[in-house]
């Protein structure tokens, strides 16, 4: 009887945890992970807390998450009294366009690097990696002068081109890595059936690469959605400001608008967090395949 119980306990443990772990070790692991989770979640809770405080109580000296006499006033002001919705709209337009263009350009480039052997292949790939080493400001000034010459200052197109250029190298590497994992025999049979190279790419490879395309899209979207420095230099008119420039500009008025800023920051980061979390399953796979297969 007692023996049975012990056996049951052990089989329960073995089913759900690693075989050789003691209960103490399991508790310790959970504890460590939970502490880290508190560390990662707390700053978001802190913004929430500030956002919920009434204006006369912004600077309170306690660690309560939900303050006494909490209010949604800051959220109302964030939506109706500042240009938050305009900034979100501008950022959405730029980020979606950037992601679409970056993914289409890098998909074809990644495919070529993965499937064809040609002169300049290796140096081409290195080139895309090396671009990651350029310090941003080094490109910023010449880029700015170029955009002035092209008349693209204060225009979305003026952001679109640099953003695409930032997103492309990493995307090329990721997608190339993923294409490497798709067996060549699939295309070969399509060729035999008479499909053209472009058809094969479009009809066979792209659908198979959907998870990698999704991750790449997310990366490109996020890089544009959160870019601050270039936008700050290129955009000066209030009606074209993107989210980051708009929100940081509130920093100047921190003393009075801390609560509104917090509400606005929450409104804008929650959808991104949800998107990220719902894609997190692919995130592991997408990154690994890109990484391991190099």
């Amino acid at each position, binding site marked *: 009887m007692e023996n049975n119980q012990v056996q049951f306990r052990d089989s329960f443990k073995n089913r*759900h945890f690693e075989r050789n772990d003691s209960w103490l070790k399991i508790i310790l692991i959970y504890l460590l992970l*939970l502490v880290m989770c508190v560390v990662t979640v707390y700053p978001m809770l*802190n913004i929430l807390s500030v956002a919920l405080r009434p204006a006369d109580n912004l600077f309170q000296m306690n660690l309560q998450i939900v303050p006494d006499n909490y209010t949604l006033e800051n959220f109302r002001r964030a939506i109706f009294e500042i240009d938050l919705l305009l900034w979100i709209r501008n950022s959405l337009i730029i980020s979606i366009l950037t992601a679409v263009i970056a993914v289409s350009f890098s998909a074809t480039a990644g495919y070529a690097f993965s499937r064809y052997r040609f002169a300049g292949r290796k140096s081409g790939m290195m080139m895309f990696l090396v671009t990651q*080493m350029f310090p941003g400001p080094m490109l910023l000034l010449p880029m700015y002068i170029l955009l002035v010459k092209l008349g693209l200052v204060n225009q979305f197109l003026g952001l679109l081109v640099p953003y695409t*250029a930032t997103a492309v190298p990493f995307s090329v590497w990721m997608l190339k890595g993923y294409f490497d994992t798709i067996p060549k025999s699939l295309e070969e049979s399509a060729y035999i059936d008479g499909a053209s*190279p472009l058809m094969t790419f479009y009809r066979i490879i792209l659908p198979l690469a959907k998870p990698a395309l999704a991750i790449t899209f997310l990366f490109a979207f996020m890089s544009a959605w959160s870019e601050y420095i270039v936008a700050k230099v290129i955009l000066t008119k209030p009606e074209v400001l993107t989210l980051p420039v708009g929100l940081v500009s509130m920093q100047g008025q921190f003393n009075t608008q801390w609560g509104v800023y917090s509400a606005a920051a929450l409104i*804008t980061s929650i959808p991104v967090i949800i998107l*990220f979390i719902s894609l997190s399953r692919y995130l592991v796979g997408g990154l690994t395949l890109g*990484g391991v297969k190099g």
Partner: protein
Amino acid sequence: MNGNNPATIAPSPKKKRKNMNLAVGPWTPYWYILPAFIVMALMVFYPLAYGIYLSMTDMSLATFKNPNFIGLGNYAKLLHETAFLRTFGRTIVWTMVNVFFHVTIGLFLAVLLNRKLPGKGILRVLLIIPWAVPQYIVALTWRGMLNNQFGAINIFLQKIGFAAVPWLTNPSWTFIGAILTNIWLGFPFMMMISLGGLQSIDKEFYEAAEIDGASGIQQFRNITLPLLKPVLAPAIVLGTVWTFNMLNVILIIAGGFGNEKTQILVTEVYRLAFNFYRYGYAAAYSVVIFLILLVFGMTFMKRSQGLEEVR
């Protein structure tokens, strides 16, 4: 397309391959790469070349229209400046501390998450939150939390019996605050990379090691680390470069460019260019940064053989 007569091409694999090559012209791969290349050329290579040219001129606000070519003058001045060396040293500290904690915390959490553990899906999701929040929001939020008087961190420190830390008034503390922020920001990326790598390692290696009586630490050192290397090496290079060039966090935590003691090389470039309008000198700064990173990236990749598969 030569696929009209499958019977004649299908039999031997050799012929199949030949057929595939016939299906594409010698220029096909270049056409595929062209769009990406044009974007890069326009926004990366042209500015790069122009930046190198700028670094050899005395372009500033006064000489904006007609800059004089001064050869390597800016570089000579730069290397004689002690502030440059100090900033460089600070950048090294910044980069090494950050990357060290990104990798160790990330790897550690990944190892914990790679076990059989009920509820690990939720834990993983909570742990990638810093990665999902836009950087400038992270930096602004941490700036709020680091507030000397009303920030959560000081309130917490005082609650457990420590003195408040002058995070935003003492430059050294500001710098440490920026490092804390950036560590928080960066470890989830390394965690996800490591986790992906760990999942690709065959469990049989560990089973065999266990039979041979290897301890957990031995298994980690002799199986996990070597097999993770191809995944981690490029991630570390990228992470180092990103950290080295991190503008947002320092810019926002330090509240602009007021204090020289909180700057790293890349923020110094921004300061020189957009606060002092010393364009030529700033360009020379950034060329030096680029060369440092290039040398670092190449040596690291060569040493760790991270690019093996690219060959």
